[in-house]
């Protein structure tokens, strides 16, 4: 069987569809996500990113079109449990996701719901806690955790379900920069271990490690491609009101002054490499 892991066909979603004040949020989205792919979705508030995320695990059912996870449509109610074990979701505010008052109980909640037998349960909980560096805190109350640790706990709780894909709906938005970095490093490790990641964010720096980026605007995909390709499209990004990551913004300015730098330059390391090798190259 050779179908993509996640396939989205002509997806449209309208809030309050049957009322006299419908709000269209997604229009005719077509997208595939491969196993193990790291996809970043960016866009302004109201562009439909969050709605798209919730369509990926059947929390929202398409108004039109289909979302197929491993061949199973999310419209099929009987398929929802298997779909949700394959596609795990982490939300923005950890406090509103936590159901228990002990860290390890929280991580166990998901697999407990699935009836996972006790030995396997213990193993999954321990693995998830170790992966998210929360092992020492396993008997504590989530209330004692810092904001960054809470975000990692939310991820651990989803990891324990053994998903193939992790969807993060702006999980770093309310974090301080250090915690944000830790979460991103965690995501990269998970990705290297084979997990597909769909990360929704409006921090442009977070997009850099992704395999692919999608820029959403008013319910549609406005731009798509590798981070390099997308960030090279300066005019479109300007029009959409989106920033470049800082190194790319600096490179753009230098290029305009005549210094020779590749158009897809994204990271600080690349900037250092190019500027300290050929010193004085340009003009």
């Amino acid at each position, binding site marked *: 069987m050779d179908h993509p892991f996640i396939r989205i066909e002509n997806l449209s979603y309208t809030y309050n569809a049957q009322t006299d004040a419908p709000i269209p949020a997604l229009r005719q989205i077509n997208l595939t996500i491969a196993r193990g792919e790291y996809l970043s979705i960016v866009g302004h508030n109201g562009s439909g990113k969050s709605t798209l995320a*919730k369509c990926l*695990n059947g*929390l929202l059912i398409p108004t039109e079109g289909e979302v197929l996870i491993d061949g199973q449509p999310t419209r099929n109610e009987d398929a929802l*449990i298997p779909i*949700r*074990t394959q596609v*795990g*979701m982490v*939300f923005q*505010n950890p*406090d*509103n*996701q*936590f*159901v*228990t*008052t*002990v860290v*390890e*109980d929280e991580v*166990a*909640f*998901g*697999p*407990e*719901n*699935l*009836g*996972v*037998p*006790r030995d396997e*349960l*213990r193993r999954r*909980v321990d693995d998830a806690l170790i992966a998210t560096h929360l092992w020492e805190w396993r008997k504590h*109350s989530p*209330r004692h955790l810092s904001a960054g640790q809470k975000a990692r706990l939310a991820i651990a*709780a*989803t990891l324990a*379900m053994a998903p193939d894909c992790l969807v993060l709906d702006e999980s770093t938005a309310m974090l301080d920069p250090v915690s944000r970095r830790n979460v991103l490093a965690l995501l990269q490790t998970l990705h290297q271990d084979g997990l597909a990641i769909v990360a929704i964010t409006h921090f442009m720096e977070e997009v850099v490690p992704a395999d692919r980026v999608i820029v959403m605007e008013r319910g549609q995909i406005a731009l798509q491609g590798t981070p390099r390709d997308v960030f090279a499209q300066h005019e479109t990004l300007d029009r959409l009101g989106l920033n470049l990551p800082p190194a790319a913004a600096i490179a753009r300015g230098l290029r305009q002054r005549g210094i020779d730098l590749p158009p897809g330059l994204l990271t600080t390391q690349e900037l250092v490499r190019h500027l300290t090798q050929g010193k004085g190259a340009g003009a």
Partner: protein
Amino acid sequence: MASYDALRHLAIGQYIPAESPIHRLDPRAKLVATGLLILVVVVITGYLTNLLMLGLVLGLVLVARLSPRYILASIVPALPVIIVLALLQLLFYSGGSESTVRVLLTWGPVRITNAGVRMVIVSLMRFVDLVFLTSLLTNTTTTGALTHGMESLLRPLSTIGLPGHELALTGAIALRFLPILGEQLESIGQAQASRGVSHQAQSRWRLVRNARQLAALIVPLFVDVYRRSEEMVMAMQARCYQGGKGRTHLNELRFTGADYVALAASALLLAVAIIAQRVGIW
């Protein structure tokens, strides 16, 4: 702003970790024992029995390494209401069906009887007992253990359709959110105060004014609660919650000797209390 961190100070519902024989008891034993002890409190009506019971409950609180002062502090915001009710009872209760009612004082419609006095004092003692007993349960048991225990006890009823786990989980989540909502209430109060709502110089005794201001605080709190519960439902769905059926547990519950002792002692106490009431020992 003192009145608004009342919920944050609530001893009821907050797990306070410690090492004590009571902390170590199985939650099912604790739930049943608490129920039995509450029945005891309901049953006894005399000075002596209530004094003994109060002493026992206080003793249990100390064994659990909890601070009676901290627990009592959580009643303080409710004090005005309690005192008003007590006063009404004192002034108007005329002794019901007892044969030895003696009137102590009359003044117009007001009649203070010895039965009234006893009722007020006993009621106050009972109230304190209940506060201590509920704190004893919730301060020594994590909400996870409580949920597990409650669900386990309710499981036999699932054959007649009672959703035990859902109920237990709902209760646990509600308890868990009390301090969070307390903080929210505090923030809301502070935000309103910052815009000129004067909560200043309000003593606890200006009941009507406090009630109106409380109403202005409740609206944003309700909106907040609603928003949070929407998110929580989505998160639970995402983690495949399907009710109690087929759920396994990370930490199994197991009865030990101490649990049987606690249950037996509570049942015995209830029996003794009923007998004492019958026989007339007060």
